[in-house]
């Protein structure tokens, strides 16, 4: 098994993860190069989200290693976090804060100027709801706000967990546009997908997780 190198945006070697005695991932090897948008497919519970979370420093692997642009996700977690944009399945927003306040909080945590907040709100077309509390948001609006938060950190690597859920046609187009934009600038994206259709236009290739291991398709039909 080769030691991970820094040529790849994401370099996962032999990643295994267990919960108790149940092995969810049994040695996944996956490489994502800059400029690629890779779709992760698989049945429910197949471990796609688990793999994504390991790449995103939210979980430690039970075995194996993952490098993001040369930084190990366990030993150099902060360096990895500075480069990734992780879209979690649940929005992780504060219901009692407004959209703008949620983003301003994120900006403070990231050390980013608050001017970027307005720009991010514009990009996801949520400026009209900027001063409304998230409690009243629809699921689609929450999703957009999460994406706005993602944009704030100007990530190089996108790790997205089912980004198209809860989005309408316009939202799907917006999401694909944002992903394509970020990847074009030398980044990469790893996208967990429930179904192929919404992302078909932007995927370079797909990888299916089955029985805890990967099986690849060369391209997307």
């Amino acid at each position, binding site marked *: 098994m080769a030691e991970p190198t820094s040529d790849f945006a994401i370099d996962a070697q032999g990643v295994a993860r267990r919960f108790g005695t149940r092995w969810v991932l049994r040695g996944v090897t996956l490489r994502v190069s800059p400029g690629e948008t890779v779709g992760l497919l698989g049945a429910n519970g197949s471990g796609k989200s688990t793999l994504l979370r390991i790449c995103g420093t939210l979980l430690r692997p039970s075995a194996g290693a993952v490098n993001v642009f040369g930084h190990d996700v366990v030993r150099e977690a*902060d360096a990895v976090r500075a480069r990734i944009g992780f879209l979690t399945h649940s929005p992780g927003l504060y219901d009692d804060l407004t959209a703008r306040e949620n983003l301003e909080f994120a900006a403070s945590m990231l050390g980013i100027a608050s001017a970027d907040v307005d720009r991010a709100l514009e990009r996801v077309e949520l400026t009209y709801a900027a001063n409304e509390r998230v409690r009243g948001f629809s699921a689609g609006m929450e999703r957009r706000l999460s994406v706005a*938060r993602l944009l704030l950190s100007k990530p190089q690597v996108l790790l997205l967990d089912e980004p198209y859920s809860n989005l309408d046609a316009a939202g799907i187009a917006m999401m694909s546009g944002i992903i394509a934009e970020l990847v074009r600038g030398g980044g990469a994206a790893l996208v967990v997908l429930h179904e192929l259709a919404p992302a078909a236009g932007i995927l370079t290739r797909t990888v299916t997780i089955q029985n805890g291991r990967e099986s690849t398709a060369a391209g997307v039909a």
Partner: protein
Amino acid sequence: MTWNNDWRRVRAIAWKDLTTERRSKAGFNGVVALGVTILVLFGFALGPDAQAMRDASAGVLWLAALFAAVLAFNRSYQVELESGALEQLLLYPGSRWTIYTGKLLANLAFVGLMLVIVVPVGIVLYQVSVPATWPALLGVLALGATGICTLGTFYASMSSRSRAREVLLPLLLFPMLVPALLAAMQASKALLNGDMMHEAGAWTKLLVAYDVIFLIATHLAFEHVIEA
């Protein structure tokens, strides 16, 4: 440079905690109500002899503060867990202790504000006369609240994410707080009786030492308990 970053993060988290708490008003009112209820219940337990109540007032006040504060500590993490916001916090690059400090400051403000209401109510209910040494008493209140909030915020970060969270927090926290509670209660009692300033001083020193030791220890330990 990272020091500035860290303090900005601390302020952001403290502001966020206090704002979300302020906007969901139910929390603070409930905690204050609980504090007052406990004072009343202890009144039934000790009374109706006014002298007995007066003698026990310092101790009862601290117990009421403690039980009410425990609710605040759990709520502090509940908001993160409900919406999956804790993960987001962990995704921001930067020192973990800033999360702890931010929450600690928010809890301190919360508990402090609660005491501002509950202590005067206690003074009235227990027929305590405000002594000349009341500034020192304020100091003891601040130090005691700091001790309670330090370990409370720390243990709540674990208990809120485990099974039997309602049991685990008091079980872990209360025995650990014995020195702080003893010191706070004894110092308060001495000050309320006006005399024996020397005694209060010794207890206050213990309280300061306790606070410093555990502030440092919890900050160092936090990064090990906050990860998923």
